């Protein structure tokens, strides 16, 4: 038998063996990132009618709009999405934000949303909903001067670089050509910011971290690599203030080795110190309990038939964790609807499910 080939495709429908008959159940998925697409693939493979909603103009989430394209080939994701559409019949509704408690335009990418729906629009129209909305808010610096022009969070900096392709008038690229850029943090997004700033023609780049290279989450290999590219690595420096009249001019840091206060010249300062999950209806959904595992059903929120998966549940992590969570939530959802259809909800054994968590 010849193996079906999906070369060049991130095959979210990898579980499908043959065309599953439609089962007359509809699921709405909020967010087309790794967890949402993995959940969509599993459910569509089982014959579900799947609708995926995303605020951005293109599915893929941070795989497309956050992580630079030299790390993840964008066409591999878009071919995977097309495969979901054509082979598995998944419907995508982009530029559509599912309304949440937080004010609009607080998260990166909100300005792309042309259509706004409430969660009840989804629960009314689908048999179940999976929330996979990710972590789209950057943790912000709280030091003096953090609101000056020229100070960015990692997502504020990285997002427009990928989003500009969609020619939205609200998106403008950070202008770094010939400028001095300081990046704060030593995680993978800090490294991504450094790489992107370099590609965009920054004159001088420094990476400032409060601990040492041994503790850098991105690891010594990456730090060595960017140093070889000419980036200055400044460790044991804790940011204390940003100085400037209307625009960032200097970053003041405390040098943990010498105990001295240092002033570093900068035109642009990017803080890459982590992201925060952005769940719609945090309280109503009882996400705190889902996180603790205190739920009636794996990955189900306090609302009946509303499930949650990925970074929005467990905080920013990695694509693999999001994929796993999306697959688990999708399987849990299908099992829940099956049991419910027979009015046997009480038979769920949460402890058995916990074993392989």
């Amino acid at each position: 038998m010849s193996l079906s080939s999906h070369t060049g495709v991130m095959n979210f429908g990898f579980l499908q063996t043959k065309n599953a008959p439609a089962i007359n159940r509809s699921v709405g998925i909020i967010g087309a990132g790794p967890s949402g697409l993995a959940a969509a693939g599993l459910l569509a493979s089982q014959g579900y009618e799947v609708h995926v909603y995303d605020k951005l103009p293109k599915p893929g989430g941070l795989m497309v709009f956050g992580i630079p394209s030299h790390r993840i080939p964008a066409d591999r994701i878009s071919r995977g999405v097309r495969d979901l559409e054509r082979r598995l019949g998944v419907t995508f509704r982009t530029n559509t934000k599912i309304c949440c408690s937080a004010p609009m335009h607080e998260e990166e990418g909100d300005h792309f949303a042309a259509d706004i729906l409430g969660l009840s629009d989804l629960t009314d129209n689908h048999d179940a909903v999976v929330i996979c909305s990710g972590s789209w808010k950057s943790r912000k610096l709280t030091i003096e001067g953090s609101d000056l022009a020229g100070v960015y969070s990692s997502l504020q900096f990285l997002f427009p670089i990928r989003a500009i392709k969609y020619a939205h008038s609200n998106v403008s690229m950070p202008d770094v050509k010939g400028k001095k850029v300081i990046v704060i943090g030593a995680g993978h997004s800090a490294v991504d910011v450094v790489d992107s700033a370099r590609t965009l023609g920054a004159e001088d780049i420094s990476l400032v971290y409060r601990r040492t290279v041994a503790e850098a989450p991105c690891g010594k290999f990456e730090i060595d690599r960017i140093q070889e590219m000419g980036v200055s690595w400044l460790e044991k420096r804790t940011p204390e203030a940003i100085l400037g009249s209307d625009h960032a001019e200097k970053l003041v840091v405390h040098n943990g080795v010498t105990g001295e206060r240092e002033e570093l010249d900068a035109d642009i300062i990017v803080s890459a110190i982590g992201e925060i999950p952005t769940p719609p209806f945090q309280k109503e959904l009882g996400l705190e309990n889902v996180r603790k595992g205190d739920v009636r059903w794996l990955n189900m929120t306090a609302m009946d038939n509303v499930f949650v998966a990925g970074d929005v549940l467990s905080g920013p992590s990695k694509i693999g964790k999001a994929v796993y969570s999306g697959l688990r939530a999708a399987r849990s959802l299908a099992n829940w609807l099956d049991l419910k259809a027979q009015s046997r909800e009480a038979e769920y054994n949460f402890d058995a499910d916990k074993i392989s968590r």
Partner: protein
Amino acid sequence: MEEQKTLFIDYSKCIGCETCEAVCRFLYDTPRIAMSRTIDGEIVPLYCQHCEKAACQRVCKRGAIHRDAQGAVLHDPMKCRGCETKDCLIACPYAAFFATCKGVAVAKCDLCKKRRAEGLHPACVEMCPCDAIKFIDRTAIASLKTEASEEAFKRVMAHIRPKKFVD
């Protein structure tokens, strides 16, 4: 003879995102491809290369490791007695045997045997966002190797076999 297919990971393309491990865990509970963090902080998946001369097969006293028609090196739990010496686990040059707490207590990649029987590729290959994992004929591996992939592979080997690779 049928094509002898195996996995090849280009470590220079891998971003350490853990998707391969995640889908393997979803399908098989104990993942047979596992992430490891090197001293230098690179996060890499360790995997079975289905060696032509498989050390695990050679050392297994029970004959529990054999090769199927497509070249996959398979572990047979029917013959395995889960020996305490874990010779297979120690013999594997790529650290691709995994201890479990269940049954015969080892697990290894079978190139998604059941998926292959249905005409599908291994799950990790399908879901890798970076196209870093290939399911290809053994003879074609050489053509995929680049300077960058070889260097990255050496770093991984220095991580799992430090003694052998120290100059």
